[in-house]
C-alpha cells in the first residue's frame, strides 16, 4: 500500500488520474473501519486532509457550496439556518468524535443507503461537484446514487463540494434507531417544503438499495396542496391527505430484512415518519405564514 499525500486539489486530481484505484480518505470514519477489519486493502490510500479548500463552505444567493470534508460538527454549528434538514441529519450521525471527522463528501463517496446526509440532500435539492483532470461537472443528487454503495463518479473523479439549495421553507429529518447516538439508521426520512415553487421534496434512507425520493408521494401532495389552496390559506392539512402521502411514501420503499429491522417494519416506519415530518414542517410553515400576515 502507498500513502499519497497531495498538498493541493490539483495534486489530488493528478494522483487520482494516475492511480484510479486510489481510495480517498478524509475523516476516515468509513475507510479506516474497512482497513481495520481487513475488508479493504487498497493499493493507494490518498489523504485529502491537507487540502484546506475541502474544509470550507460558502453561502451563496440560492445555495451553499459545502466543501466535501466539512465535518458534521461544523454543519450543525454554522449552517442550521441555511440547511436545517442537513443540520438535523448531521446531529444524528454517530457521536461527537465521529462528527468531528466525518463529512458529506465521505457519505456520498461511500453511498451507503443508510448514510444520514442523503435524505436531507434529496429533500433540499443538491448537486455534487465532481472533478477530474478531464474537467469539472455537477451531478444532480437524484442521479448520483446508482446502486448499493455505488455512485455516479468515474474512477478518476473526486468529490470537491456539494451545492445544496438554501432552505426556502421548513425542513425536517427523522431517523429510526435503537438509541440517539451511535445508530446506523433502520430507516430515515427527510422532508423539505419549498414555498417558493410550491413543491414538497422527500428523501428516504435505508429503505431501498439506494437513497430515494418518494416521487409519487411528492406529486400527490403537490397537487393536493395546490387544489386545496393550502399554500395560500395556510389551513391544516387534512388527515386523509396526510395519510395518503404517508402510504405513498411507504409504497416508494423497496426495503430488505436485515439485522436492524424487517422490510415490513421499515415500510411502516417510513410512513409514520412521512406523516410526522409533514405535520411538523406544515405547522411551522403555517406559523410563519400567520406571523407574516399579522405583520402585513
Amino acid at each position, binding site marked *: *500500500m*502507498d*500513502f499519497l*499525500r497531495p498538498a493541493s486539489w490539483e495534486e489530488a486530481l493528478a494522483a487520482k488520474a494516475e492511480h484510479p484505484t486510489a481510495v480517498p*480518505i478524509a*475523516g*476516515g*470514519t468509513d*475507510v*479506516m*473501519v474497512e*482497513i*481495520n*477489519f481487513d475488508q479493504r*486493502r487498497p493499493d493507494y*490510500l490518498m*489523504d485529502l*486532509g491537507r487540502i484546506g479548500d475541502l474544509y470550507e463552505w460558502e453561502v451563496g444567493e440560492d445555495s451553499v457550496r459545502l466543501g466535501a470534508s466539512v465535518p458534521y460538527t461544523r454543519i450543525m454549528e454554522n449552517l442550521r439556518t441555511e440547511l436545517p434538514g442537513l443540520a438535523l441529519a448531521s446531529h444524528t450521525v*454517530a*457521536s*461527537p*468524535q*465521529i462528527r*468531528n*471527522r466525518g463529512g458529506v463528501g465521505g457519505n456520498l463517496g461511500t453511498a451507503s443507503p443508510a448514510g444520514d446526509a442523503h435524505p436531507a440532500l434529496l429533500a433540499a435539492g443538491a448537486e455534487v461537484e465532481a472533478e477530474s483532470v478531464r474537467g469539472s461537472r455537477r451531478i444532480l443528487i437524484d442521479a448520483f446514487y446508482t446502486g448499493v454503495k455505488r455512485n455516479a463518479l468515474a474512477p478518476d473523479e473526486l468529490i470537491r463540494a456539494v451545492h445544496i439549495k438554501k432552505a426556502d421553507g421548513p425542513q425536517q429529518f427523522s431517523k429510526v434507531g435503537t438509541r*440517539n*447516538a*451511535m445508530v446506523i439508521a433502520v430507516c430515515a426520512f427527510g422532508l423539505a417544503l419549498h414555498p417558493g415553487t410550491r413543491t414538497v421534496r422527500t428523501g428516504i434512507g435505508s429503505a431501498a438499495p439506494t437513497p430515494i425520493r418518494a416521487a409519487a408521494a411528492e406529486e400527490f401532495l403537490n397537487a393536493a396542496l395546490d387544489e386545496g389552496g393550502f399554500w395560500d390559506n395556510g389551513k391544516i392539512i387534512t388527515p386523509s391527505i396526510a395519510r395518503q402521502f404517508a402510504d405513498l411514501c411507504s409504497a416508494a420503499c423497496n426495503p430488505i430484512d436485515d439485522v436492524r429491522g424487517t422490510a415490513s417494519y421499515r415500510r411502516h416506519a417510513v410512513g409514520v415518519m412521512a406523516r410526522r415530518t409533514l405535520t411538523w414542517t406544515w405547522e411551522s410553515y403555517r406559523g410563519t405564514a400567520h406571523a407574516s400576515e399579522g405583520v402585513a
Partner: protein
Amino acid sequence: MRVNFTVNGRPQQADDVWEGESLLYVLRERLGLPGSKNACEQGECGSCTVRLDGVPVCSCLVAAGQAEGREVVTVEGLADLARQRSDGLSACGTPPGEAGHAQTRDTCSQSGESGELAPIQRAFIDAGAVQCGFCTPGLLVAADDMLERNPNPTDADIREALSGNLCRCTGYEKIMDAVRLAAARQSEGV
C-alpha cells in the same frame, strides 16, 4: 513510512509505519503510550479517543499518515494540558489551530510520569467512576474537552458529549457524577 507529529507536547517520530495503520496503533505499539485503548476499531466505543489538533477523535479511525505534522494529546497528556490551561496557556506545545508553531516545553511530560492528575482524573477517582477502567481514558479525554468548551454543562450536555464513549461496567451514573463534580470544582476554582 515515517510519521512525524507531536504527542503531548513532545515531537515524535515513528518509523516503519504501515500505510494502513491507525494513529491508535502507532501511539500504543510504536510510541509506548498504551493509555488510549484498543477495543472496537470501528469508532463505536470511544475508548481510543484523543485530541487531534485540539479536537476529540477516535484515533482508531485516523490513518497514521494523516497525523503527520499534527498535534495529538492522549490521556497521558491530560494533566499537563490541564496545568497549562490553568496557567493560562493552551495545550502542550501549541494552542489548538496553530499547529506549525510548535514550542516544545520541557514541562510537557511524555506519559504523565510526574504522577500528577488532571482535575477530571481526580474527579473520576473521587466519584468512584472507574470500575474495570478500560473505557476511562476515552471518557476522560472526551469529558475534559467538553469542560474546556462548556464549563457549566447541563446533564443533557454531558450525556451528549459522552455519547460516543461506551462503558459496560458502571451504568454511567457515577461517570455523570464525576463530570458534574469536575465541573463544580472547576467553577469554584478548586
